């Protein structure tokens, strides 16, 4: 091998090493950016909830509900949550049943949003770490401190959908190892199973629950 060829080979290796170094750094930066975006999403949600809470006296019940519904649609993957909570029965249901279930489930989700968000606001959240699980899911873990001091510090995890080309959205909140999403899915599938696999039984139970909530809220 001539001296020129050796120099060329060495230059080639150096270029390759530089390219690898740069691309690895870029991937790491992109990954860190995704984690930071997920953490920001949780921070922004809590900030918006606090802003609405501060307007408590100046907002009517309807205005408050509308604002919370907007937050729910913006920050949460409502479609994905609806589908997931039906469990394995989702695939076996008719288009009409899916439509009806989605409407009733969303109704409950939005009606209960006020209570759920108020519970969240009784805690102050300090993120401790964000981790990616594959390329679609990010977990933002942190410590929730009960502002009233009644409940000991608790670890909570926000699960965030981070699919390429779609905005990040929250899919779940896990408190002390208990996932709200998984619990709802287990409850729903247990109810269907008890009724011999009849998906309509779940829809009816949810409709009844929604009526109760609405009557309690005076709607």
């Amino acid at each position, binding site marked *: 091998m001539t001296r020129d060829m050796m120099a060329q080979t060495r230059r080639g290796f150096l270029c390759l090493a530089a390219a690898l170094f740069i691309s690895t750094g870029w991937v790491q930066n992109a990954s860190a950016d995704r984690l930071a975006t997920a953490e920001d999403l949780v921070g922004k949600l809590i900030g918006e909830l606090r802003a609405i809470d501060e307007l408590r006296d100046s907002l009517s019940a309807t205005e408050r509900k509308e604002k919370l519904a907007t937050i729910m649609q913006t920050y949460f993957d409502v479609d994905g949550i609806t589908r997931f909570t039906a469990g394995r029965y989702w695939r076996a249901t008719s288009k009409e049943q899916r439509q009806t279930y989605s409407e009733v489930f969303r109704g409950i989700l939005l009606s209960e949003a006020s209570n759920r968000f108020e519970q969240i606001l009784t805690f102050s959240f300090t993120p401790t770490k964000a981790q990616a*699980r594959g390329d*679609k*899911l990010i*977990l933002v873990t942190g410590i929730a401190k009960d502002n009233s*001091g009644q409940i000991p510090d608790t670890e909570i995890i926000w*699960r965030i959908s981070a699919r390429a080309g779609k905005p990040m959205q929250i*899919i779940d909140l896990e408190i002390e*190892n208990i996932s709200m999403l998984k*619990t709802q899915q287990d409850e729903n599938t247990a109810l269907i199973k008890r009724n011999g696999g009849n998906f309509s039984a779940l829809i009816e139970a949810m409709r009844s629950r929604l009526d109760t909530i609405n009557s309690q809220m005076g709607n």
Partner: protein
Amino acid sequence: MIKPDHRIKTAMLAGIAVFMAGCASTPDSSDSAARSDPYESVNRSVFAFNLAVDDYALEPAAKALRKSPDAVQTGLRNHVDWAAMPKTAVNSALQGKGENAVIATLNFAINSLTFGFVDLLEGEERPASEDFGQTLASAGAEEGPYIVAPLLGGQTTRALAGWGVDFILNPYGQLTQGIPADLSNASIPISATSIRATYFDAINDVKYNSLDPYARARSAYYQQRDGLLRNNLSIDETNSDFDSFFE
């Protein structure tokens, strides 16, 4: 002082519980809704009984406790935590978690000065709670079916076996005469009321806002229990339940 008959009773209880864990079957799935619940019908009846007890005794008592001064509530909470330290220390040691065992032992010894009502180690590292059910799990004992016991609530037979052994390790389990005996008799309702008051809203949420409180309580139990047992699992293993979300 320990009465001989008390020892015999607790040993029998532990023996029966361990036997039940040994006879337990393997769960058929990681899905908590589909996990082993062969006695669901009976379990639901006992669950209804437990809910009635909660309606008439525990919830009103917890509501009253929540109206008491913060110092009273914190003191009771601290005391309940303190009484659980011996079981954490022993079970940590049995599982080879030496550091946790030492922290629990020190915590118990130091806070014994206040009988646990004042946490003299506030702000210091807390030991992770360990029970004999977890020790049995780490030894490879099978989980067993889900059983709802009167007053004790729902748990797997393995965890129920653990409860029997942990009962012996509770300092109250060793007090059987005079004033301490009265304290011993009162310890279970006091602990139950304190825990009910601490998680008042969360428990009421299950009780009043569920389509199926039994299924919700069972799901929450399995998830919390799995969380305690999965300390060393990776993020992939602990989040596989959510894979279907993206299908």
